[in-house]
């Protein structure tokens, strides 16, 4: 009885702490309301107007604005619900014609605050995921996720609803880890109907659920397969049913998968294709110097704008199918492992790995997609020093690769400070975690033992703490600083307006090295796990 009471008290103070973290983040997000927002802001505003003022049958046909609805139906429903509140606050927000490019304070505050409130979903996901962790690891995880600078930059400045969607992913993972596969599958299906980009992890889910949930003898297994199938189908029917009923499913699909877009986004996400393109450019310049006649591709060097199809001078052209196959190939070892030994404890790692593969080899990848694996990896990171080391580097690289999103002068100090704060917090908490556990145990014994012996042991822990990041990692991070200084100060100073794409290219290339490292590290981790 007593113990139960104590436990209840503990959980209440813990959720209080979680809300405290959330409150601090919310204050910062509230202060960020007037900051720069990208066209995504108008995209989401237009979707509010579109869902509010048009009947469902026209949602995926509307062309009032270039920002057509290209998310799956659940997201449209979500906007539809939001639009009611928007209508209460200012009817002009949801007016499909008068609302175009509407920029008044009401719409800015409404949309910004809707992001802050929808982050509660992330909060619940994280809470569920960390419920059974020991209190230190839990706190650490909260720091990493709730105060994630990437999420703040993308959601509260650039403007998107990633926190909410990642919350769904966390929920799904938390159910899988508890062994409640049906619920896990359900939430993943829901997530897919909110944003289809999350489908990259679908093979992992499929293999894992098939093996862990359904592979239970013939009859029972078949029953389970059916129930899982029914759950997923119900979710998809709820999302796509109305459109299927109206015979619009083809239109919906074509809006959701605009393959007319280029291999890379306007700013190249730091993935494998950056190397490919750079190699192509390098080769073409080299061969031209040799006197060969190389046809210059039509797309400009900085190209990759929406609608640009990639063209290479020397290397073979990349098609969406090719990228798809590459992602699957990269996923294969993970799928194999998941098939051989489906463990709930490793699910988070596998899912994160799947998103990493999607990020590295996918078609038209946004730099924002790195959040899809950085956030779930936070769960893995709190478990061991090895993982912490990897996460430390990855989180910094991923956050830094988001810098070009906020290119205006006004936000410069904010993004730098966000990254700096996160690095310091990670450094503090990881080293605290790695030193505190043995230290705490030792202190108890040290009380009775001689001082000299405890000092010797202490040295070891101190040394262990020091190598949170090795010299290669340090050099790499200092290189990051160098790239930033070059891009911001030296390049404009030395070269003026010449070669304006070089700083961005450097950021992409340099961060791509970190991403590739993270991919290899994760792959190795998955391969050696038993």
């Amino acid at each position, binding site marked *: 009885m007593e113990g139960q009471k104590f436990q209840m008290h503990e959980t209440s*103070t813990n959720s*209080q*702490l979680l809300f*405290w973290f959330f*409150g*601090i983040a*919310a*204050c*910062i997000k*509230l*202060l*960020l*309301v*007037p*900051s720069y927002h990208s066209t995504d802001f108008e995209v989401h505003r237009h979707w509010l107007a579109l869902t509010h003022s048009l009947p469902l049958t026209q949602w995926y046909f509307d062309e009032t604005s270039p920002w057509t609805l290209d998310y799956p139906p659940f997201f449209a429903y979500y906007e539809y619900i939001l639009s009611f509140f928007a209508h209460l606050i200012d009817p002009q927000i949801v007016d499909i014609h008068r609302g175009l490019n509407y920029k008044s304070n009401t719409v800015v*505050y409404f949309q910004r605050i809707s992001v802050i409130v929808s982050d509660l979903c992330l909060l619940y996901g994280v809470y569920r995921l960390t419920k059974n962790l020991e*209190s*230190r690891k839990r*706190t*650490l995880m909260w*720091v990493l996720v709730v105060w994630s600078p990437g999420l703040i930059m993308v959601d509260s400045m650039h403007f998107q609803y990633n926190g909410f969607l990642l919350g769904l992913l966390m929920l799904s993972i938390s159910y899988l880890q508890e062994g409640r596969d049906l619920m896990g599958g359900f939430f993943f299906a829901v997530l897919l109907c909110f944003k289809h980009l999350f489908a990259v992890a679908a093979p992992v889910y499929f293999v894992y659920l098939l093996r862990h949930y359904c592979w239970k003898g013939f009859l029972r297994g078949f029953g389970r397969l059916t129930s899982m199938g029914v759950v997923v189908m119900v979710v998809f029917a709820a999302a796509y049913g109305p459109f299927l009923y109206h015979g619009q499913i083809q239109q919906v699909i074509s809006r959701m998968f605009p393959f007319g877009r280029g291999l890379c986004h306007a700013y190249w996400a730091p993935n494998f294709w950056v190397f490919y393109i750079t190699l192509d450019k390098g080769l073409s310049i080299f061969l031209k110097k040799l006197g060969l006649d190389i046809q210059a591709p039509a797309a400009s060097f900085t190209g990759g704008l929406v609608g640009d199809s990639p063209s290479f001078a020397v290397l073979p052209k990349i098609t969406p199918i090719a990228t798809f196959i590459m992602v699957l190939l990269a996923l294969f070892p993970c799928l194999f492992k998941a098939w051989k030994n489906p463990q709930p404890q490793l699910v988070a790692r596998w899912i994160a790995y799947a998103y990493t593969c999607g990020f590295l080899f996918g078609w038209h990848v946004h730099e924002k997609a790195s959040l899809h694996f950085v956030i779930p990896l936070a769960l893995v990171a709190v478990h061991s020093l090895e993982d912490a080391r990897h996460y430390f580097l990855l989180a910094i690289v991923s956050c830094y690769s988001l810098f070009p999103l906020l290119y205006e*002068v*006004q936000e410069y*100090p*904010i993004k730098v*400070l*966000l990254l*700096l*704060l996160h690095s*310091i*917090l990670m450094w*503090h*908490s990881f*080293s*605290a*975690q790695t*030193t*505190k556990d043995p*230290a*705490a145990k*030792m*202190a*108890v014994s*040290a009380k009775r033992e001689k001082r000299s012996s*405890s*000092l010797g042991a*202490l040295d070891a*822990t*101190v040394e262990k703490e020091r190598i949170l990041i090795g010299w290669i990692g340090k050099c790499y991070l200092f290189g990051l600083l160098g790239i930033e200084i070059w891009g911001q100060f030296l390049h404009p100073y030395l070269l003026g307006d010449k070669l304006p794409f070089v700083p961005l290219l450097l950021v992409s290339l340099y961060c791509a090295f970190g991403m590739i490292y993270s991919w290899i590290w994760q792959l190795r981790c998955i391969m050696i796990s038993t």
Partner: protein
Amino acid sequence: MEKKGKKKVLKDMADAVNEDDDSCWWFVHKGIESSFLCIAVFGLLVRATVSLHPYSGAGNPPKFGDYEAQRHWMEITINLPVKEWYRNSTNNDLKYWGLDYPPLTAYQSYIHGIFLRYFEPDSVALFTSRGYESYLGKQLMRWTVLSSDALIFFPAVLYFVLVYYRNHSSRRKSDVAWHIAMILINPCLILVDHGHFQYNCISLGLTVGAIAAVLSHKDLVASVLFCLSLNHKQMSAYFAPAFFSHLLGKCLKHKNPVLEVSKLGLVVLGTFTIIWWPYLNSRDTVMEVLFRLAPFERGIYEDYVANFWCTTSILIKWKRLFTTQSLKFVSLLATVLTFLPSMVQQIMAPSRKGFLYALVNSSFSFYLFSFQVHEKSILLPLLPASLLATELRGPFELLMHYALFSMFPLLCRDKLIVPYVALYALFFLLYFTPSGRKDAKIHNSTTLTCLSILLTFLYLCSLLLHILYLIIHPPKKYPFLFEAMIMLLCFSHFILFVSYTNAQQWMLSRPYTLKDKEKKLN
């Protein structure tokens, strides 16, 4: 060095046992410096985000606001010779935001003006730049404040914290971190400097540096720093009685008081001479500057400030009943009389804590009773109060609440309501940090229940007034009804607070002497 490190780790381990369930462990375990670093970066982040919001007088010609004043001073100082900075001439119209702060502010404007000129020459061009507002110009101006904060206020606070906790090594680390957060994330200071637009961080930072120097017994350094602060904003004189009395009290305890006093005097004179050097060649130039610094022509109060004169003017029309001359005298007398007790205490028994209390008391008596006080002057008493945050706890929270509230109308005018709300919430979140509450005992004795009921009542009133002020238009007959009510509430709280701190300061001298005696006996 090595040994020290080991000792520290040992202590860490001891703490680890004691604070096993401390939810701040992950962040404070490395000691004061690293938790300071963390909070400082967070503080800078908060400041940078606040500076996204509008400044005072944005897009509001012809007079604009403090932002334009600061920009205009940069324009004047980089384009005119030093001698003409304070002189009315064809190039320098003193009626349009003439320079009315001491020379150090002018030098600071000069340096910042050069910075602005490098990136955007138009923003500080003579004449043509009046009312200049641009995207880049705003960023540059904001960055000058941000960098001043980072370069002066933050290091000063670090110095203070290191000195203050040098002898309190047994204190819980999360308490130290909490204290740092209370000083650095001061919503009033952030809103005025990074929202409204001023450079209080410089003069207050110099004052904190001076306080830290006093606490570490480097009295000469303290005098220099305080003189610098005084020469950046004459308002720093609010602290002068405390510094004077504490240093004097310390000198009197020495073997040779006259020597000590004259050393301090020489340092003060020297600092003043260096700062005022360009104006020292004739009496006229000095008087010119001095005349600019003393705004006696403005009347005893402006707008609605929660001090004695303004609040009582609801009943007694001071401005009509008395001449400015006699008001000056009366306000001076009232100020002196109110800070005298704390001065006497410090001269008789100078102590570290007593000094901090004296700073609160003397600055509050200036705020409440002196001539020409502005709403923003609440920052001055708030600073030493935040340095005493671990001592004051409950009363400090209330003080912060009312200090913010007293600036509410001003911040509303500046369109800073959202940062006001966000910083208010942030402050209270930090104040009630889940682990930092263990020894926060807010008056539980029965004698104080009456007072606590009154305080709760006032608190609720103030929350209600916030909402009323925003939603309801006051009746036409009394257009400033809400302002007057806010002022009345804040004033009554300030009076309570200052009586409390005065009492605390005097209580200090008794146990202090007792302890001393015990020590001697031992």
